[in-house]
């Protein structure tokens, strides 16, 4: 019993530390990628290849003076931070990083909790995360922040629906909501679900960008109109936490889920020895993350009403059609 708890705590610690470290170092990756896309160097001064830049940034953000605007709703102001950060971490609780293995006769699953409603947790966390944005906009007592958070709310409401229907196709084929089961069924069938569900994958990509507030859906920030929108009144590390949660943890989490749903999770040829499932999983995830970064530094941004327009008028009908067709096919062939 105690050992189970310890193992669980160990897994949580690993995911947390890796998650935070990844988040910090993704800022470096993003700046390097952006730099090379934009014909410049990116960070290069602090440490070799600028590798210590995230640490320098972290020190700077942590040591900054805390400024809370007059008239701000202070408890909600802090609650917003928690509500932004915690759900993006909780997504990782249902991400399976590899197949189970046995140590000293004890089976260990490299997933924090293999619940049978894993995907529902992902959706739930995505919906909760929007409260962080809304609270931040409301509590800041600033018009820019307020408008930014309202835009985000509108986007999330519409894309939650599309996301749910898009993923339904995969669930129908796999016959399970558990992330581990979905990966296993793909390995059993020997095929990735992107082959069966290409439309669903594209819809998922849209929703992923919208949920994480990446270009072309970064309307809640829109630095030209709203001066970075909902987080404009936050300073220091409080300010740093929002992009960490939204831009990095959310993107990595949702990419990992995409890999689970469409790219066969950890499956792949055993060319890296015993570590190869984990390496495949990370490679696939970061390929998707890189794709997101690439889009971010290439495309302009949509307008708020266009985004909701696209969601309700184009994406949702396609998603519904996809679900109906998938259901028919699954029914006929099983």
């Amino acid at each position, binding site marked *: 019993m105690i050992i189970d708890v310890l193992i669980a705590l160990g897994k949580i610690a690993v995911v947390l530390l890796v998650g935070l470290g990844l988040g910090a170092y993704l800022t470096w990756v993003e700046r390097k990628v*952006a730099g090379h896309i*934009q014909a410049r160097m990116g960070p290069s001064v602090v440490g070799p290849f600028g590798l210590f830049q995230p640490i320098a940034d972290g020190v700077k953000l942590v040591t900054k003076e805390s400024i809370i605007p007059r008239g701000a709703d202070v408890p909600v102001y802090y609650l917003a931070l928690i509500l932004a950060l915690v759900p993006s971490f909780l997504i990782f609780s249902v991400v399976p990083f590899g197949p189970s293995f046995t140590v000293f006769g004890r089976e260990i699953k490299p997933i924090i909790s293999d619940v049978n409603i894993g995907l529902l947790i992902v959706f739930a966390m995505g919906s909760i995360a929007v409260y962080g944005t809304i609270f931040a906009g409301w509590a800041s007592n600033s018009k820019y922040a307020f408008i930014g958070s309202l835009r985000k709310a509108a986007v999330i409401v519409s894309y939650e629906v599309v996301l749910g229907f898009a993923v339904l196709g995969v669930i129908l084929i796999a016959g399970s909501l558990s992330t581990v089961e979905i990966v296993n069924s793909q390995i059993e069938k020997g095929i990735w679900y992107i082959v069966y569900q290409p439309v669903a994958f594209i819809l998922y990509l849209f929703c992923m960008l919208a949920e994480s507030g990446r270009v072309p859906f970064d309307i809640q920030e829109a630095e030209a109109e709203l001066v970075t929108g909902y987080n404009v009144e936050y300073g220091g590390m409080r300010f740093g936490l929002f992009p960490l949660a939204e831009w990095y943890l959310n993107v990595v989490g949702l990419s990992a889920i995409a890999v689970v749903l469409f790219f066969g999770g950890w499956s792949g040829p055993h060319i890296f020895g015993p570590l190869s499932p984990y390496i495949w999983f990370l490679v696939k995830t970061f390929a998707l993350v890189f794709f997101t970064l690439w889009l971010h530094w290439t495309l302009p941004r949509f307008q*708020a009403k266009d985004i909701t327009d696209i969601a309700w008028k184009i994406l949702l009908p396609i998603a519904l059609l996809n679900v109906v067709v998938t259901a028919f096919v699954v029914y006929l062939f099983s």
Partner: protein
Amino acid sequence: MPWISKEREERIKNRYKDVNIIRYEHAVSFEVGKDAFKDFLKYLKDEEGFKHFVDLTCIDFPDRDERFQGVYTLYNPDYNERVIVKTWAHNGRLPTVTDLWPGAKWGEREAYDMFGVEFEGHENLKRMFLWEGYPHFPLRKDFPLEGYKEEELPSLTEVLAGREDPPSHDFELVHTKIATLEDIERTERARLKKKAQLVLNWGPLHPGTHGTIWFLFDLEGEEVVQCDVILGQLHRGMEKIAEHLHYFQFLPYTDRMDYISAICNELSYVQAVEKLLGIEVPEKAKYIRTMFAELQRINSHLLWLGTGALDLGALTVFLYAFREREKIMDIIEGNAGYRLTTAFLRIGGVHYDLAEGTLDVVKAFVKDFYGRLKEYHSLLTRNRIWLRRTKDKGIITKEDVHAYGLSGPVARGSGVPYDLRKLEPYAAYDEVDFDIPVGEVGDVYDRYLVRMEEMVQSLRIIEQCVEKLEKLPKSAPYINKKHPAVMSPKQDVFHDLEDMVKNFRIVVHGEEAPPGEVFSSAENPRGELGFFIHSKGDSRPYRLRIRSGALYNLSIFPKLIQGGSIADAIALLGSLDPVVGETDR
């Protein structure tokens, strides 16, 4: 400038007997009495086709009873003719012309702000640049250049040190008035009465406004119900300064108006003065001017492209544009010695001959730039998101172009081929071959395409200039130093007594200008930049009016944005492309 033709003048004279015609070579004006004034303007607009509004200003003659003279510049786009109408104010009042040309709204407010002339019938006659409650009218002749010193502003360090008297520093404690927070609040309230849910402020400092403009948006949700603009944060009173300087001394000030296209500003100003003084410019100088003006135009359009795309979230285009801008800056720096505020042109020519190797660098740049333009096109032009953000947004009709006095790419985006390089060729524009791109719909996207194509046309012009300059001998003169009002180049001054004496005389006494009037304008990247000079035969202008293209282009913004969202506002503002240094002057 092609001014009003003799036949038309005769026809008008027959109809209005008591109209007084003053004909100078570069400005033809009708002086109209107060009673016939509105009727005369209506006639000019409706029947003679002078429907394009160019400019409105006042001149102060303190020794006359009526004192203020209103000066209206109009343009006939069908026959390419221009005319000035003048009328005297009665008891400091003039009738408004906003019912004929809504573009006069801001012009009248500016005249009210600067001269205290009241325009009867104006819908919201508030100060344009200065704050509500400012007691003086700066462009009046009795207002001293340094202002009235009436407010004590002690040094902060002295106050903190607790020292009272005498001040340890050698600077004056009494200054001209500055706006207090209450003043600014009063100004804000005077501009916009809140009707909808919330008033969103953009500015005075805001990343989307490209300078210190202050926008007020009255929002219903994200929809803009009404909007107004508060200008003046960068107002330096250039017109007042010009009245106190010799003609050559004002040149560096023009750099600081539209600081992104300094050489184009200089070109416009230098031409106005050359017309007034009757100076011929050598051929080489003409081509150097044209080439650099076009380089500057590309430079300016690149800045517009970069920031415009940045506003719509395309971050990478910004840095790509700046990469190419840097090359142009380098060429300019190598020739003028400065990057931004160049002071490169001189009255009668240019400051320096072409630096060694300039033409090779320019050729290399042109060759490279065609490919770069393709890169920008591939990033934006067919991009679905870009189209969605720009198509059918902020449509300007042809009528509005004329009524608001729009010019530059903003006018051409709406299909009005109003390009002074063709209509009134200056410098070497009549000897080079180029086309004027025009839009069809007049939306943000058309203005984008027009500017992109203008860069290609600029490249064509530059290529032809390079070709010509390569043929010209190195010894060809680049400044017309024979003219008595043109300063000789520095190296001559050190070797030639006559040149030294001439320069000494000009520096001390200034150029002697004949009495007269000149209205001269040039096609700037941001529209028509005009200089109206009223000379009384002194070495300083009696009145120098700067007609800013950016100001008139911006004046249609509050109308266009009604019913749009604030995301449209940013796209629209980017497409109008104002520069605050020029709107405020």
